[in-house]
Every structure is written in C-alpha cells, then in structure tokens.
C-alpha cells in the first residue's frame, strides 16, 4: 500500500474526530519532572565523583583564592562599618587590615596573575605536564566522542526542555546539557536507539534506569555510571 493511499484512507476517518480536532482545544500536560531530578542527580554525581577520585586537592588554589577573597572582602566591609562610628580609630583598623593582608594579597596576586596569563594565552606555553593534567581534570569526558564540558555541571535549560516517560515506553529527551551533545545512554544493558529527540525503550517499558557512562580523562580505565530513575511522575 502506498502512503498516498494512506493519506486518502485517513481522509475517511469519522467526521466527529475531524470536528473535534477543529473545535476542541485539548489540555496540554506540561510535566517537567525528570530533568530537574537529572540536574540534581548529575550535580550529586559529580560531587561524589570528586570525593571518590580524591580530586578535592586540585581545587585548593581556587579554594584558597576564594577564602582570600572572602577574608579581604570581610575585612573591608568591617572597616567600612567601623568608619562612621570610630573615625579616630580608622588608622588602627587600617593597620590591622594591613597586618592581615600580606599572605592573602600574595595569593590573590598569584591567582590574578594566573588568570591574566590564561586570558592572554601566555600560560599555555609555560604549562608543565602536571599543570596540564590538573587542568585536564577540570573537565569531564563522555563516551560519546569525548565532548568536554565543564566539571561544574551548569545544566543549561533548552527552550522547552523536559525528560518525560509515558506508558508506551518512550523517553522524550529534549534536554540540553551544556551543549546538545549526548552522553552514552544505556537501558538495562540494552543499547537504546538515539534519535533527534526520542529514545526508543524496549517494548512495554514503563520504568527503568537511564544510565549515563562518564569517564575521567585522567583515569580512562575508570568509568562511572550515572543512574537516573525513569517512570516516576512529579505531581
């Protein structure tokens, strides 16, 4: 049967259906449950992965910088707060602040210099292998061709993103994860078909776990699996 004929056949469906489609405006369900959970799960996963791989240390410079920034800003605020009340004591406050500054200021300068170097590209030339390795670990690689996205998983909502499951066993996957690159997706060890916006699940599937395999660039032999339960509805 040619689909031309199907077009004609559909033209013969009952008139009440045609009438309904013309006159009735259906209520559209706007469920947005799972992407939010996915975002949370992804964040949690990355956090756990950090601890698990002992990567906490590589954040030290940034943590220190953050602390330094925080301390300086606190000191400045405190000093400002003191100003109106105790103008006479200002020199003392300044002195106290100056005493606290050297180590922090040095760290701050270092970080600023680093940032500048990165910005103008000069640091890349001077990067040691160790530096590069550390830099590398700030990114997460996927099995889907090694697309790199920020370790800090800033989940960027698409125009109309959602991850839905219905009873017929399909997942609608209009989800943007930083870019629209897709990580390796499996379903109970059955490779799913990936299309533009639909994943075909095995027949009759109404629930299950979406598994996303991730791998650290520095430890390619280690893979971690992010498991996202499907089929649950958020009220």
């Amino acid at each position: 049967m040619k689909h031309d004929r199907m077009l004609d056949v559909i033209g013969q469906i009952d008139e009440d259906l045609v009438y309904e489609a013309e006159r009735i405006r259906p209520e559209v369900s706007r469920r947005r449950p799972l992407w939010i959970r996915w975002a949370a799960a992804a964040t949690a996963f990355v956090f756990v992965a950090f601890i698990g791989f002992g990567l906490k240390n590589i954040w030290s410079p940034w943590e220190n910088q953050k602390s330094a920034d925080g301390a300086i800003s606190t000191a400045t605020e405190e000093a400002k707060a003191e100003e109106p009340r105790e103008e006479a004591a200002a020199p003392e406050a300044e002195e106290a602040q100056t005493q606290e500054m050297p180590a922090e200021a040095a760290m701050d300068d270092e970080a600023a210099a680093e940032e500048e170097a990165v910005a103008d590209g000069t640091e890349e030339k001077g990067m040691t292998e160790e530096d590069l390795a550390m830099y590398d670990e700030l990114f997460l690689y996927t099995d889907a061709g090694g697309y790199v996205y920020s370790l800090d998983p800033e989940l960027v909502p698409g125009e109309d993103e959602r991850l839905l499951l219905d009873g017929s066993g399909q997942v609608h996957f209009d989800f943007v994860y930083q870019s629209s690159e897709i990580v390796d997706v499996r379903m109970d060890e059955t490779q799913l078909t990936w299309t533009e916006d639909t994943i075909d699940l095995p027949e009759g599937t109404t629930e299950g776990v979406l598994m996303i395999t991730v791998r650290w660039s520095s430890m390619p032999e280690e893979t971690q699996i992010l498991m996202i339960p499907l089929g649950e509805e958020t009220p």
Partner: protein
Amino acid sequence: MEDEKIIELYWARDEAAIQETDLKYHPYCGAIAIRILEDREDAEECVNDTWLHAWNAIPPERPGILSAFLGRITRNLSIDRYRVKHASRRRSNLEAVDLELADLEGRYHLDEQIEDRVIARAISDFLRSTDTFSRILFVRRYWYLESIRDIAERYEVSESKVKSNLFRTRKALRQHLVQEGVSIA
C-alpha cells in the same frame, strides 16, 4: 444559518444552500485547501468545486457534521489537484506528510483487498482509544495536513513535542492495524 437548515435547503434543491454554505464555510474549507495547495487561486477553485460536489451528494447523503463533510470534500479535491499539478515533483508540506505516513506502511504490506473504509474505521477506533491531545494532533497533522510548526503554535507546545507525539501515535497505530488484521507483515 444552522447546519440543519442548510442541509434542508440542499434536500429541497434550493440553490440558496450553496450561498449559505459559502457564507459559513468558505474560510474553513479555504484554509484546508490553501494548506494543501499553497496556491490561493487553486484553493479558491477547489472550494468552489466543493460546493458543487456537496450539491451533487446531498441528497441522498445527509451529513451528520456538515463542516467535516465539506472539509473532507475540499481535502480530497485539493489532494487530487495537488497530485496532478505536482506529478513530476513532490514538495513541501504534503510531501512531508507522505513521508511521515510511509512509516505506517513501510514495514507492513496492507492487504489491498480490504476496503479503505474498513481501514479508516480501524483508524477511527484506534484514535478514540488514544488520549485527546494525541488524537487531535494526529487529525490536525494527517487530516487537516497542518504543518508541524502551525500545530505547535496552535497548542503552544514545542515542535519536538508535536513530532514525538505523532511518532508515538503512528507507532501505536501500526500495532493496532496489525492486531486488527488490517496489515500483514
């Protein structure tokens, strides 16, 4: 004028029936025709032909829903005209619909001995078993031949939602047709 009164005019062979029909249903039928033909002049001719076909069909027919009855005539006339006009090269919305419907038939061979009307009945039954939103999307796309974009705008949903819903409905319909013995693998 009420549809029943218009139909009575047809039955009385009163030519005012055509004027009243044109007055009430020109925009509706015109929209169907222009959507398929994408040519205002052709669409206008199809709409005028629709009134003639209705005049010839009523009586003996007594349409239950006049709008759908007229719309069907317009749709069929427009598709026929489109096919004649674009016999050598298909394009645009109707071609897209054809391609989408191909996945209903591509994997099965529908028994040609079965009348189209029986298949249409099976499709109608199937559509009644689906949820309202899916049913309406299906009819808007494959009966009214509305573009994905227009449907998405009409119901304020994303185009991908429309596409995936239609995909799911077609897939379920295919299964239904097999179960009903309409299609043979």
